Each structure stands twice: as structure tokens, then as C-alpha cells.
């Protein structure tokens, strides 16, 4: 190209070449130290957008995993509560079976009733379980328990009570908050359920409304009261085939009626005992219904949801690894390649400096 090589031309070219090689060396060194091929968007603008997308996905997966951990924990607490509740229900059923034995003395039944009420209260406290400051069966109403003990329930209902809490447990009742007309609560949301996002597309319901305990608790109350000798529902007392007893649930107050069981020699003892046994049978049916319809159904539902969350977690794990791999392939430097490029450039620079220095020394001046 050039027909003359002048001193300034030679110097400039030499400086430019050294500069370029040094810039390349610096780039390669940066790649080696940062481990990234694409550290700034301009390193590869077309793929920078992809890298951002992949980084976002990785970031999101991490957050999904945090929520999955929360959901798993929340569901596991419920699973424990529900398993315990199921055991309580089975025990209640056993107690009912014992109590339905006609030869048993009424005061022994009343003693069984005490244990029944204990178990009922255990059910209620399971329903009021708190986890991380939240009532797990409380819907979105975090500051109020789903079940409230209303001691004077039966007195008030009968219109005979004075409104003060009952002294003995059989006279009170656990109320599920929505029906709670006594403590006027302005907040709603007791039956609202929570969905937690566990992946970009999937959400899982992490709670159940407290009303799944409602039937179980009231069945337990019914059983306890029946064992204690209260009439709890209508009966066909004149056995004419029609449930026409005036002292029935229709006349609400009379659910308080104490059956006359204290004197086995009384004329109506047998009919009253028959009513009590019938009432215990009714309570047993209610217990069975509550267990199969609510508790067991919920148990399997929780199991299914837990399985789903775990499955999603393992899918996310895989996606996370794949995404990270994809990002790494695009963005990360190939260290071996970069290192050998670095070595190459180093050799280049050495050669350049050596030849440059040698040519600079050659001049006609040295020979005249």
C-alpha cells in the first residue's frame, strides 16, 4: 500500500497496534475476572434482552420457592391439625358407642359426657390454631378467632337465662364467627380463602374456611348433651308415627329440657331412656357425617394440595436449573477459551514489542 515508510508512519502504526492489542488484552482480562461474556448490554445487544429475561425468570423462581416454603409449612400445620381432629372424632365415636349401651347407669353416661365436652373443646382449639400470627382457619380475618365460646348460648336461646355464662360446659356452645351475632364484629372475610402463587401460572389454595369444623363441633356438643341427659331434638313421644312433640326443637327453648332419668323407678323412666338413646344415636350419625363429609375430605384435599405444591417445587427446581444453564451459556465466559485467548494476545504483544524495538534501532545513521 505505502510506497514510502516514514518515521512518523512507523511510530504511529506501532503505537496503534500496541494499543489495540492492549485493549484486547484488557477485554479478555475483564472477561476472565468477571466470568461474564456479556457484562454490558453493548457486549451483545441482541442477546442482552434475552439475558434480562432469563435473569428475571431465575429471580422469580427464587421468589416462588420462598412462597412454596411458606405454603408447604402452612398446609403441613393444617394437615397435623386435621389428623388430630380425625383422631378426636374417632374417639368421640367410641365414646358414643359406649354411651349408647342401655344398661349403663345415667350418671356414668354423664361422666362420659364430660370427656366428650373436653374433646369438643379440643376440636374448637384445633379450629382456632394460630400459625405465624394467623388463624389458619380464620379466612382473612386475622385478628379474630374463627370460633368463639358463647357460654350463655342455651340460656339466651331459651329465653330463660340471665345472659351470664353457663357454669357447666354443656350449657355453652362454640359459635363460628359469621353467625356470631353477639360480639358484633365489623370485619368480614371469615370464610374467604387465600390463594398463593407458587409459579408464574399456578396458584394453590392454602387455607380452608373454619366452617369445616362447625358440624363436627356441633355434633360433639349434641353427643355430650345427649349423654348428659338433655333432649336435643324433636321426638315422637306419643309414638303415633308423627314427630309432633310440642317440646321439640321448634319450641327452641325446650332443647334445654332435662330428661327425667334420675329415678329408675319412675313411670316415664323407660320412655325417657329410649329418647336419650335415640338422641345419642342421632348424635352418632351426625358425628359420622361430619367426619366423612368434612374432616376426611379436608384431609385428602390437603394431601392433594401438598403433593401439588411439592410437584411444582420440583418442576421449578428443574426449570431453575435449565434457565440458569441457558443464561450461563449465553452470558458466562468460557474460561478456557478466554484464558487461551489471553495467552495468545500476550504472545502477540511480546512479539509486537520485540519487533518494534528492533526495527526502531535500524537506521542508516548507524552506518555512516
Amino acid at each position, binding site marked *: 500500500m505505502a510506497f514510502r515508510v516514514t*518515521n*512518523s*508512519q512507523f511510530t504511529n502504526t506501532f503505537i496503534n497496534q500496541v494499543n489495540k492489542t492492549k485493549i484486547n488484552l484488557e477485554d479478555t482480562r475483564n472477561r476472565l475476572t*468477571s466470568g461474564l461474556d456479556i457484562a454490558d448490554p453493548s457486549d*451483545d445487544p441482541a442477546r442482552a434482552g434475552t439475558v434480562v429475561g432469563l435473569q428475571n425468570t431465575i429471580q422469580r423462581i427464587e421468589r416462588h420457592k420462598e*412462597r412454596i416454603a411458606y405454603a408447604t409449612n402452612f398446609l403441613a400445620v393444617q394437615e397435623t391439625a386435621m389428623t388430630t381432629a380425625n383422631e378426636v372424632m374417632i374417639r368421640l365415636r367410641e365414646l358414643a358407642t359406649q354411651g349408647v349401651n342401655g344398661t349403663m347407669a345415667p350418671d356414668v353416661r354423664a361422666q362420659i359426657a364430660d370427656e366428650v365436652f373436653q374433646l369438643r373443646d379440643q376440636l374448637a382449639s384445633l379450629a382456632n390454631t394460630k400459625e405465624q400470627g394467623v388463624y389458619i382457619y380464620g379466612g*382473612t380475618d*386475622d385478628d379474630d378467632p374463627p370460633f368463639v365460646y358463647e357460654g350463655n348460648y342455651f340460656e339466651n336461646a331459651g329465653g330463660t337465662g340471665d345472659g351470664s355464662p353457663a357454669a357447666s360446659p354443656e350449657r355453652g356452645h362454640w359459635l363460628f364467627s359469621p353467625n356470631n351475632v353477639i360480639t358484633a364484629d365489623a370485619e368480614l372475610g371469615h370464610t374467604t380463602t387465600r390463594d398463593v402463587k407458587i409459579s408464574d401460572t399456578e396458584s394453590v389454595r392454602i387455607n380452608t374456611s373454619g366452617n369445616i369444623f362447625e358440624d363436627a363441633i356441633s355434633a360433639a356438643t349434641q353427643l355430650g348433651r345427649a349423654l348428659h341427659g338433655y333432649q336435643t331434638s324433636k321426638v315422637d313421644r306419643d309414638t303415633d308415627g308423627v314427630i309432633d312433640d310440642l317440646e321439640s326443637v321448634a319450641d327452641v327453648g325446650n332443647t334445654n329440657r332435662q330428661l327425667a332419668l334420675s329415678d329408675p323407678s319412675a313411670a316415664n323412666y323407660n320412655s325417657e331412656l329410649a329418647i336419650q338413646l335415640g338422641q345419642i344415636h342421632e348424635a352418632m350419625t351426625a358425628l359420622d357425617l361430619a367426619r366423612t363429609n368434612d374432616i376426611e375430605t379436608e384431609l385428602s384435599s390437603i394431601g392433594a394440595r401438598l403433593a401439588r405444591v411439592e410437584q411444582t417445587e420440583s418442576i421449578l427446581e428443574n426449570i431453575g436449573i435449565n434457565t440458569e444453564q441457558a443464561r450461563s451459556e449465553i*452470558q458466562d465466559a468460557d474460561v478456557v477459551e478466554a484464558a487461551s485467548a489471553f495467552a495468545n494476545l500476550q504472545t502477540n504483544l511480546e512479539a509486537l514489542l520485540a519487533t518494534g524495538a528492533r526495527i526502531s534501532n535500524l537506521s542508516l545513521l548507524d552506518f555512516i
Partner: protein
Amino acid sequence: MGISDLLETSKSALNANTQAIRTIGDNVANVNTPGYTRRRPDIVTTQPLPVSGVGTGVDVQRITRVVDNFINGQLEDRAGDRAFAEIREEFLGRAETSFSLDGVAGRIGYEFNEFVSALQNLTTSPGSIPLRTQVVQQGQELVLSIRQTYSEIAALQREADSRIGIIVEDVNRLSSAIADVNSQIRESEISDQEALTLRDQRDQLMLELGELVGFERVDNSDNTVNLYFANGFNLVQGTNSNDLEFTQTPSFEDAAPNGFPSGLDGIRLGHVVANYADSGAPQHIQLTDIIRNSGEGEIAGLLSLRGVQPQPIPPAPTTAFDTDGDLVQLAGRVELFARDLLTRVNRQYIGQDDENPATPLVFDSQSLDLDGNAANDSSIGVVNTGGLNGFALFAFDNAEAYILPGTGDVKGTNGVPVNTDLDLVIAAGVTSFAQTLTFNISNERHFAAARDLDPVAGSIVGSPGGSENVDAILSPLSTAPGVGYNLGVVSLTDMSLEELYSNTVTTAGGFSRRASDDAELYRDREEQLQEIQASISGVSLDEEFAKLINFQRGFQASSRLIRTADELLTELLNSVA
């Protein structure tokens, strides 16, 4: 013809060789002087004697510069191209760092994702104070990252603008120096001999000027040059130069309110002009477009970054984003991000009238904070909006000063912010929302996560653990296309915020990459020309020394001739005697 003539001839040879050696001395001395072109003595045979035809010797007619004016002109252009690309490379490289891919906190994309995650986490337990704190912190971080990114770009634009002002001064210095040199050349080049040093100096000055601004050159018959822009404006006209000015208040600007758009920081941008009024009020001629369109020189590069303002001025309201420049384009994308947060998120956050779906935009706050207060209740310290206002979650500095259309209430209690509302606020004087964006919640209890659960109109009842409002904010953020703006020169609609950010990163990277590729290309091309130029005009020491030997021998031979002539004369005289 006599022997004495031989003496004359030898004397001329001695002279010529001496001059040639002096020229070599000059060349060797200036081997490293920038802008020096090597000299060459034009050695010619003198006129022979008329009758005999015997030669009379040699003469150095003049010393010429070995120069190719065409190459020099090209070199000025290349230097201009290179300077244009290099200044762009510098600025866009700096702008790009705001969108770096190192995946660390502080970038908009990262903070946005964290904010969305914080909201999603909150749905697991909306009453939880730690989760609420996370939302408030991430909201503030997001706002901070947007503000920071925007101000970094705005600061670059301002820097570009003030650099133009400084460079214009430099241009004036160079053009007046060239005019000076022009006049010296005209005066000293009366004879055949070129004013060598002055010409070198002028070429060097023009090369320097070419790095700053692009121009055309024409040589005049009196050896001066004219330098002019594409529209005919003479920067240098023979021995005169016309000064450029850099002003923020050009005489050709219409009276307010329809002025030129401001810079990204809300302060006016400058114009490159020349004043052609002899006295009195300035009469400016607009040169900004011409210089920008030349695509050569640092000023053009800075203008392409900073943006050239539209002409004629578009109808009001003009915004900073009507200016067409690379930095404005980047800032425009950040601005879109901020506007989308202000409109879409706030609209969801306040809650619409679910009891009256036929009029979905009628304002009726449906969202409740942890204490059961409405999202935009002034009593919960909605920081900047001074009471009931549509800007309840994301707001901007002094938002309370701007009225949103609605019921006629000064604070616009009816104002669920929509795009046109922002336009009105802009018309009222806000330059950019990204610059002044704020996150309105500072107390975590005041973040409204729940919504009205009571279907009865007028009565608003929620539950403290409700997450209905968070769900409402989240659904458009992560899925539906959002950005519904065309902002000045940035035309992007129907993108989700995440897509918008990826697009911004790619754009920033693309700008920076193109600028650095261009810079490399133009550097190479300039180097090539410099090599050619050095090859033509540069000094080669070997060549000079070779010539030195030549001329030295010539000098020695001429001396020998004189001795020979002397001997001949002596012999002649002796024979006569």
C-alpha cells in the same frame, strides 16, 4: 564561454547543494513535529548560454511541501467522523452502565421484580407486618432505581449540552486563528515561494477544527481558504471569521408559551447560532440542524446524543421527549415505566366502584389498609398528595399542586389517574414523572391490601387479612400488556413492564454497541489515511541521510570543480607570463 564561467557554474552547484542540505537539516530536525510536511528543494538547470548551448549550472528554484491536498481534505473528514463516533461511544457507554447485566440490586428490572415478588409474598399473609415492610421497602427501592436511572441519563444530556458550549468557544478560537493565518499567507506569498510553515500551521488548524465540526473547504485565488457549512454559512471567509454562539434563548424562538422543549432535567437546552445583527438586539441564524446533519465532529456527536429540538416547534405542550436524541430515547423508556406505574397501578390500588360496574372509572375507594382506612384517606398520611387523590401508591413531588379532572374538587377526589390526566399535569409544568416519582406509603400499616367485601353500596367493610387489592394490582403488572403511551420520539405501546425493560436494555446496548463499532471503524479509516498521509508527507530519516550523502558528494564535487578551474586559470596565467 570561458573558464571563469566554470567558476560560476560551480558556485551555483555549491549553493544548490548547500540549500538542499539545509532542507535536509530542516526535515531531520522536524522529524517528530506534528503537522510538519517534508520539504523538497526543486532543483532546476539554469538557462544555458544562448549561442554555445553550454549549461550554466543549477539553481534551487523554490522549496516545496510534499503534500496531497486531497488526502488532507479527506483526513479532515475522517477526523470529524472519528470524533463524532468517539464522543458518542463515550456517552452511550456511560449511559449503558445504568442497564448493566450484572444482575445486582439497583437496576430497574431487578427492583421491579423484587417489588412484584414482595406483593406476591404479601398475598400469603396480608396482615403480616414484616411482609408489609418488605412491600414498602421494595416500592421505595423501585422508585429510587427509576429516579436514579432517569437522573443519570438526564445528567449525561446536560453534560453533552454544556460541552457543546465549551466546544463552540474552541471552534471560534480555531476559525479566527485560521483567518489570521490566511491573512499572513496572503501577505507573505507574493513571490513564487510558498509560506511553508504557515501552510503547515493552517492544515493543522483545519484538522483540529475538523474534529470539532464538519465543514466544506474552498481555496481562493489569493491562497486563502474559505470554510463553510452546508447551508452556505461561512465559518472562515478569507481573512475574516464568523463566530458561533451557543445560547439558550435564540432570537428566533416564538414568544411563550409555545417554546422549545426543555432538557430531560427541565432546564432549557442550547442552540448553536450565529448573530448577524451588527448592533442592537441579536438576530440569530439557526445552525444546530446543519451541524447535526453533517454527522462530523464532536458538536454533531453531542447534538445527536443530546437531541435536536423539533423545528418548527410542535404545538404545545412540548415535552422534553419531543427532542430527538439517543439519550432522550433511553430516558423516554424509563419515563414510560414511571407513567405506567402511576396510571395502571394507582388505578387498581385505589379500587374501582365494584358496586357500579357500569361506570368503572368513577372513583369510590374500595381498598382498605390494615386499620380499615381507605387507600387514599388523608388521615393515613398519603404523603405527597395532601388528601384524597388518585395518586395514592405511586405519586410524584408536589403532586398535590396538580388538579385531576373529576368532580370539580380542587384535589380531584374523583381522579383515578389515566393517561390523559398525566398529559394535563405535564401541560401544567411537570417535565418528567420518572425524575420526581415517589412511593407514597411510608408506614407499612397504611398499605391497602384488602378490598371492600360488603356488597352494599356506601358501606365499606373488609378484613385485615384480605389480599384482594394486592391481587388486583398484580394481575395487570405481570400479565396484561401495559404501556399505553407514545412518548415523543419513543413509540412503544402494548408492552408489559418487563418487556419494556428488556427493550430498554437492548436499546441501550444497541446504541452503545453501534457507537463503539462506528468509532472503531472510523478510527481504522482515519489511521489508514494517516498512514497514507505520513507516507507522502512524513520524513524518512533513512531517505534524508541517503540524500545527505548525495548532496554532500555533489558539494564535494563542485568544490573540486572550482579547484580544477583555479588550476586551469593558474596554468593559463603562467603560460602567458
